[in-house]
């Protein structure tokens, strides 16, 4: 029972940081999502050890492990686009695939070249 309360409290921390992020976003009229601001803030407080990792890790690890579960309802929404994908829409899946391949190739290639240079200068 104590463990259960602890996990609930640890997950509540995430809600708190999301709320802070969203407040900052609307206050400064930023276009970047509030959740990202909350995440960066949380990251900074972890790095500066204001929040010790030990204090929050169990609940968050539990949530991350089964994160895909939370995206099932929105993914099932593809049902409303079945006609779109039967027609012209299928081409967009091909575009998504090609674009992904280009990203892997360029990112890995640039990183590889930079790493070789780094080794060369040392």
């Amino acid at each position, binding site marked *: 029972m104590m463990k259960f309360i602890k996990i609930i409290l640890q997950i509540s921390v995430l809600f708190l940081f999301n709320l802070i992020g969203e407040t900052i976003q609307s206050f400064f009229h930023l276009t970047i999502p509030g959740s990202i601001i909350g995440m960066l803030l949380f990251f900074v407080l972890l790095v500066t050890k204001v929040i010790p990792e030990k204090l929050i890790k169990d609940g968050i690890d539990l949530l991350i492990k089964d994160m895909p579960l939370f995206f099932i309802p929105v993914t099932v929404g593809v049902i409303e686009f079945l006609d779109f994908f039967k027609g012209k829409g299928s081409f967009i899946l091909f575009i998504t695939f090609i674009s992904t391949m280009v990203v*892997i190739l360029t990112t890995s290639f640039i990183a590889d070249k930079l790493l070789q240079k780094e080794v060369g200068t040392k």
Partner: protein
Amino acid sequence: MINFFIGLGFLILTIVLYFFSKKIYSIIPSPVTLPIMITSFTLVMFLIWTDIPYSTYMLGGQWIDHLLGPLVVALALPLFRQRHLIKQYATVIFTGILIGSLVGILSGVFLTLLSGFDDSIIAAIASKSVTTPVALSISDTVGASMSLTAVFVMIAGIGGAMFGPVMWKIGGIKHPIARGLGIGTASHAIGTAKALEDSELAGAVSALSMTISSVIVSMIVPGLLPFLL
């Protein structure tokens, strides 16, 4: 009251199917047997077969909207655990991810623009390379369809996991850091699972790439889209 029970019923069905799919995945692990794939596919088939509208199913799925933000915040923890790696290879990591993220956004947007798709679809494809909670948050911000976004993100993930190693071969990429950066920037968590099979270092770099790229993409996309569409 009746809506509450319908919602609860679909919620339980979704959770049961998900944990059952995890069992299947542990027996046959492959990018196409991912629990999100099997569960979503089964539910879509079930809704078509029973002729139940998506809005009825979503009576139980609405809770996701409240969890999206906190799930994004949670990504800070795995990133924190990789902080030494980020410090050590800062230049390579940030240069690679920044260029990769831009290539991903621009190639996706321009190819769909040239093919004559609607703005709402182009907005959904812009954030396809980042992890689902962030992609959905971006789509929410720019007013794109969340369901289409989820599908594009899934294809970017599965495509990268299946053919990423082929790209490494074509590009002659051997360094585990370079491999991890490419697949993490393009194919988020699904790609990271593949990178982990390659080596522990590639997996770790892929994991940090997926989080850093999601921050970069969420900074670029909402600002850039109004100029492109």
